[in-house]
């Protein structure tokens, strides 16, 4: 990521990137999360994923939300960690899920009808994926995209999990981790919020709402941010 006053390039998409990069490159008053600024992130510490699962997740996420000229992608934003924490926590264990049988496949209008908790669903599906496509992480991007496409559109049975259901769950979790508050481990440095221009958790717009079209450029804030701008990760999931 570039530091300092980069000259403003004419292309709006690139300008946004530089604005975002400029923000991330500011000195200590906006410290980043536990990863050293600008350095490659240290090996991720997972609570839920084993190394084989993590390899798949990281490779898949890098294709679902890639780093590109618009800005950081899912990996840079810490989305694997987000998903990991969620699966290791109450949601993964089936909080708020009606878990009584009998179970029938149902129609699309009836929603999710499998007995798996989210943790079980991910574990089961990824185990099957790693058995049948162990080389996924090593494929070229095109090959990975084709495989993900087949999961999304096909109806491959992943150990009892229809691949469509797994893919949708993975994509939903990725979007949550990308755009959710960094308190949960994703959206590192609020990069996704900066990319789209979302202000975050502090929001009082009484005086701006009727300034139609105003360009709002203030940096976003996290609900877990302290007075010095440090974002404190929520290490235990709050009960919902």
């Amino acid at each position: 990521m570039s530091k300092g006053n980069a000259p403003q390039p004419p292309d709006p998409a690139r300008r946004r990137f530089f604005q975002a990069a400029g923000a991330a490159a500011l000195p200590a008053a906006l410290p980043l999360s536990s990863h050293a600024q600008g350095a490659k992130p240290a090996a991720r510490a997972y609570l839920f994923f084993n190394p084989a699962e993590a390899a798949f997740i990281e490779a898949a996420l890098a294709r679902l939300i890639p780093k590109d000229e618009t800005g950081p992608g899912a990996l840079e934003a810490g989305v694997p960690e987000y998903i990991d924490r969620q699966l290791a926590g109450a949601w993964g264990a089936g909080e708020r899920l009606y878990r009584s049988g009998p179970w029938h496949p149902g129609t699309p209008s009836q929603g999710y009808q499998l007995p798996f908790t989210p943790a079980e669903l991910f574990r089961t599906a990824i185990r099957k994926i790693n058995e049948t496509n162990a080389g996924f992480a090593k494929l070229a991007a095109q090959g990975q995209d084709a495989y993900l496409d087949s999961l999304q559109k096909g109806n491959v049975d992943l150990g009892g999990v229809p691949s469509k259901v797994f893919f949708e769950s993975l994509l939903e979790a990725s979007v949550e981790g990308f755009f959710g508050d960094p308190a949960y481990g994703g959206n590192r440095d609020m990069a996704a919020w900066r990319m789209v221009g979302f202000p975050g958790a502090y929001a009082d717009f009484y005086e701006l709402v009727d300034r139609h079209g105003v360009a709002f450029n203030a940096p976003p804030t996290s609900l877990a941010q302290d007075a010095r701008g440090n974002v404190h990760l929520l290490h235990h999931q709050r009960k919902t």
Partner: protein
Amino acid sequence: MAARLPSTDVVLLGAGLVGTILGRELTRAGLNVVALERGEPRSTVPDFQGPAMHDELRYSVRKALMMDTAKETYTFRNSGGETALPLRRLQGFLPGSGVGGSMVHWNGQTYRFHEADLRMRTKIDERYGKDFLPAEYTIQDWGVGYADLEPHYDRFEYLLGIAGKAGNLLGKKIPGGNVLEEQRAREYPTRPQKEPYGSAMFRKAAEGLGYHPFPQPSANMSEPYTNPEGLTLKTCMFCGYCERYGCEHYAKSSPQTVLLPVLLKDPKFKLRTHCQVQKINLDKSGRNATGVTYVDAQGRELEQPAKLVIVGLYALNNVRMLLLSKIGAPYDPATGKGVVGKNYAYQTMSAVQVFYDEKVNINPFMRSGANGTLIADFVADNFDHSKLGFAGGAYIGEIMTHGRPIEFHPTPPGTPAWGSEWKKAVVRHYNHTASLNVHGSSIASRRNYLDLDPTYRDAWGQPLLRMTFDFPENDVKMSAYVTERATEIAKAMGGQRVAGAPRKGPYTTTQYQTTHNTGGAIMGNDRLTSAVNRYLQSWDVPNVFVIGASAYPQNASYNPTGTVGALAYWAADALVNKYLKSPGPLVT
């Protein structure tokens, strides 16, 4: 065997909008009231304070303020030929739980229904003939007219401090307000909220096409307001965390902000939380309620005797409570006989998006829950249906409420669902897209109904409520027509591209549409075709009143909460001034 508690005058089921209003009116009349709420206590401080409240993952996605579907849910099927299955997660509609109920986390959009909604059967027959609609559609008159409810709409709006602009003051039309509304006795209690950018563009486009746009009536305050109970609400700050969230600023009308502080000071009002009512108990005759049985937080089964039972739960749960308590004949779709569970309806929703040039900053995050601009030109019977082949209608408006990015990251049709193209499109369009809503009525059909599920149960062992519903053809036609009108307006809003689609079946519970579930314990003047009379008193058990959107014989174009409030005051008025003076059936 349930332990028996000391008797009270009134037992209130639910401490939401209905429970709070009825609690206040009945304690004011001198009665002792016990209110039983299944969820937890909630107050603005500390429960709704920022920044913790502004957590999209926790509140929008994990639905922290909603009912816990691990313990109880609903089963669903599109038609009687299918097997209903449990909604293992809530997605399509989100009933709340906890003190304040759904009125804690609503958007605050507050309207009055039309005479044509309340007397739909009569008005359709008069204007279009008795054969206009197929027999499948079991629309009915409510048993009350707009003139009956007007003072109660007024009272509810002044309790809440609704921000709006009258369009019809005692017959005088006022431009800038909703000139198509039924007449009002007085102006709204506070002025309209500030109009955001997208709504302003909608207004100009709608005016240009000859429609009559007006500001959305809002329960999010435009200015500080002290209501008749002496409670003060403060100005809404357009934080963009309205629906699904509690308000940290005391700016959204909810039981907490408009009534509870007064009610909770009254020693005649006793609120018990974490209490799951199991059923209403009847005496041997089956025509008199003796109280309710409930399970408290520790799992103890208790009996609360009472002389009067007010059922003020979430609409669906009102119906379930009657079925579990065996009050009223359950509806049988095969024969069309029976009343409890019939005429379940919903809301018919669609949307049209306008994609703008990058220089146009919509700022969707600067919004309140009810700060839009809309038109009523296609609401109810405000337009001629004679050649259209459907009844009902929808309002069209730019009524965006937020820009929270997990939920809102619009992309034009044809954009892939993931990958670099998706990401680029999200970045390009996030702050440059306006969305129009088409918010439409839901007709009653003999095929859409509620009953008890034969298979699935809640954590207390009771059968879940089963919902059988799909969009009737009438509403699909209505949606097609009004969405086309909406698209015309969208094209006049100065964007680069417009994309929308009407609502089509099958109805799916996997996509959030509204939390506007109505019917199942409908009101009316004929005990053979309604569950409660015009005062919301059970025809079968006169000391049971069932108040809420469960009473609607069909659902109207507008959001239901304004009318729930009006019915609550209307029923309270009948209770205090008629029933208490002479307990017994109010309609013979």
